[in-house]
């Protein structure tokens, strides 16, 4: 045996010894035929109205499974109930990570829960793709955070920073808009929307003349509305969850405010309109960020509706069987997440996955108003959206700016 051969043999042996443990180690939640996904969300409790944000992603993954999966693997989805409460969310996330060995935590509406589980996610290097809004979850410089994004955490949808920014932009496209009022919950979630909106408004010649609080569970907005009325404002930004947004819209109508109310994404547009129950209180008055390329129910989004209706059970859909906006929001996230798996290839690890996600550049979900771009420095995929509203006859209209319909 030549000296060269013996050196080669020694190198080969050393390589094999070094490589053996790596070959034997299995990435958490990944087998030859499956990828375990932990869908964390409020499946019970009073915040359960947000669970369509999970079910939208789940429906899309079931559809992908039905089509054969990704690189020979199918999604094995395990639900974790956070009930939108921090303590319960931490327990549910730990079960998903340590007991169920989930590769990824998906969905996670409720910013409080996302912030509470973030240290565990970072410590355990768990991949997370959520829809919760607080910019401090995975925002970086330029998207509401103050440093680089957490390595394995990302949004394929906008976070509160970009949603708030677009709310401010939309408000300021109203001709003559100067004096703006905010009505917001006193929590990080609401400030995540209202603060960037305020920055934009003030940088563009507007003034936030009133920033008043409305607590969770409020059943009356008389005080807020009368304060606003006394300020003679041009518009209102409501950084509120759905139940309180409904109360604000009803009282704004009752006291004849007559100015537009721009809602945050913590409310489902269709359900809000339905729950206000009075066309005069919403037609031409209520607007909300719209993530999709057209209105829900448009022929171009029928494919998404078909998936939602086919792959969700009766219990997972609303009682009338018709998916609401939140389901499409969840599906938006699901499409981005699945695309990451497609790009990661067969050799799936959390590192190959996040690298693949960071190649999403101007990615068209065929659903969203905005395209998804994620880089190593910026883990928030979408920064713009359309706005949804109702014309004077109650027909849903998608706007690119105030008074400018998409079609």
């Amino acid at each position, binding site marked *: 045996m030549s000296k060269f051969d013996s050196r080669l043999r020694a190198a080969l042996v050393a390589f094999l010894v070094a490589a053996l443990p790596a070959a034997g180690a299995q990435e958490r939640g990944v087998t030859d035929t499956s990828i375990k996904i932990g869908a964390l969300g409020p499946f*019970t409790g009073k915040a359960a109205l947000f669970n369509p944000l999970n079910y939208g992603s789940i429906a899309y993954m079931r559809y992908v499974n039905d089509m054969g999966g990704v690189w020979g693997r199918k999604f094995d989805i395990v639900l974790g109930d956070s009930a939108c409460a921090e303590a319960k969310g931490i327990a549910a996330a730990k079960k998903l990570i340590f007991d169920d060995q989930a590769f990824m935590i998906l969905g996670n509406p409720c910013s409080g829960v996302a912030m509470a589980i973030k240290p565990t996610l970072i410590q355990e290097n768990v991949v997370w793709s959520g829809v919760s809004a607080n910019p401090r979850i995975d925002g970086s410089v330029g998207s509401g955070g103050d440093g680089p994004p957490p390595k394995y955490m990302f949004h394929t949808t906008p976070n509160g920073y970009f949603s708030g920014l677009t709310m401010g932009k939309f408000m300021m496209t109203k001709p003559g808009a100067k004096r703006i009022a905010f009505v917001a919950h006193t929590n990080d979630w609401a400030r995540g929307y209202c603060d960037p909106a305020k920055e934009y408004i003030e940088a563009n010649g507007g003034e936030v003349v009133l920033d008043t609080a409305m607590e969770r*569970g409020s059943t009356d907005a*008389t005080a807020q509305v*009368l304060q606003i009325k006394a300020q003679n404002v041009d518009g209102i930004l409501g950084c509120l969850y759905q139940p309180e947004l409904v109360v604000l819209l009803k009282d704004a109508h009752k006291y004849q405010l007559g100015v537009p109310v721009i809602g945050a994404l913590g409310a489902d547009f269709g*359900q809000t309109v339905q729950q206000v129950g009075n066309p005069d209180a919403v037609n031409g008055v209520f607007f909300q960020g719209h993530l999709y390329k057209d209105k829900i129910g448009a022929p171009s989004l029928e494919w998404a509706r078909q998936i939602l209706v086919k792959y969700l059970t009766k219990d997972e859909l609303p009682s009338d069987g018709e998916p609401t906006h939140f389901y499409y929001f969840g599906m938006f996230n699901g499409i981005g997440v699945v695309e990451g798996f497609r790009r990661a290839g067969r050799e799936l690890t959390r590192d190959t996955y996040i690298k693949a996600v960071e190649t999403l550049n101007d990615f068209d979900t065929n659903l969203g108003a905005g395209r998804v771009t994620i880089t190593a420095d910026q883990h928030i995929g979408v920064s713009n959206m359309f706005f949804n509203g109702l014309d004077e006859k109650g027909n849903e209209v998608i706007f690119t700016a105030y008074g400018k319909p998409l079609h």
Partner: protein
Amino acid sequence: MLALLPQLLVSGIAIGMLYALIALSMTILYRATTVVNFGHGDLVMVAAYLLTIFAVNATLPFVPALLLSVAVLFAFGFLLHRAFIWPIIRGPHLSLAMMAIAVGYSVRGLVRLEYGQEAVRMPRPFAEKIFFVNNVVITLDEIAFCVVVLVMLVASYVVFSKTRFGRIVQAMFQTQRGASLVGINVMQYNNVIWGVGCALGALGGVLLGLILILDPDVGAWTLLRGFAAMTLGGFGSLHGAVVGGLLIGVLEKVLGTYVSTAFIDITCYLVIIVVLLIRPRGLFGQHATLRV
């Protein structure tokens, strides 16, 4: 900002009427057994859901659905006392309070099983309407609150002051043992009074459903306001419950607008603290042992 005061007073009185009705129904229960029903808010919430089920699922017209809801809540109150309260009526006060809370939470959990994922809008008997009186806004709902509560207050006054039934209830309120010694079937009367209290609460729940989207937790909001109104008005006083409700309604609006919106949610707690410290009997309360 002072120009807002007439509006705040009108809106405060209107919502205060609703608080008053809840407090009135809790006071009636209290007069029977000197127990504060801490599960009352959940029964109020159930009434609004029941009406929705009767009107939407069973397609009954509003009035029959309302009557049926009130009847179901009467039966529920009757059975609640007979099956859960009466067997432990001689036990520690804390046990009675815990039983009431446990029943309330159980009811809330059952409602959540069916309606936990969606907020429900109760059907309305009339369209929403707004009237202006010298720039002050008043809604048809608010007028309905005032009419219903005033009618119920007068009816309660007549029943509890002018009838034999009312005198018996008053006797039981003074001393249950004494009442039973003179031959009054205390258990049966208490069953009926709990039924009546819950039926009145049902009316409150239906009024609540006119202005709120229903969710299983709406009862907690109701209970706090009702309890604060009862505390302010004086435990056991029917007119005190109404005055307490009105005052809390107005205070919430005025403090919430002029001081801080944070006062909207804490006014009822502040009222409870202040009244219990300064005048535990409340404005019109009678001396009686409070069993909580």
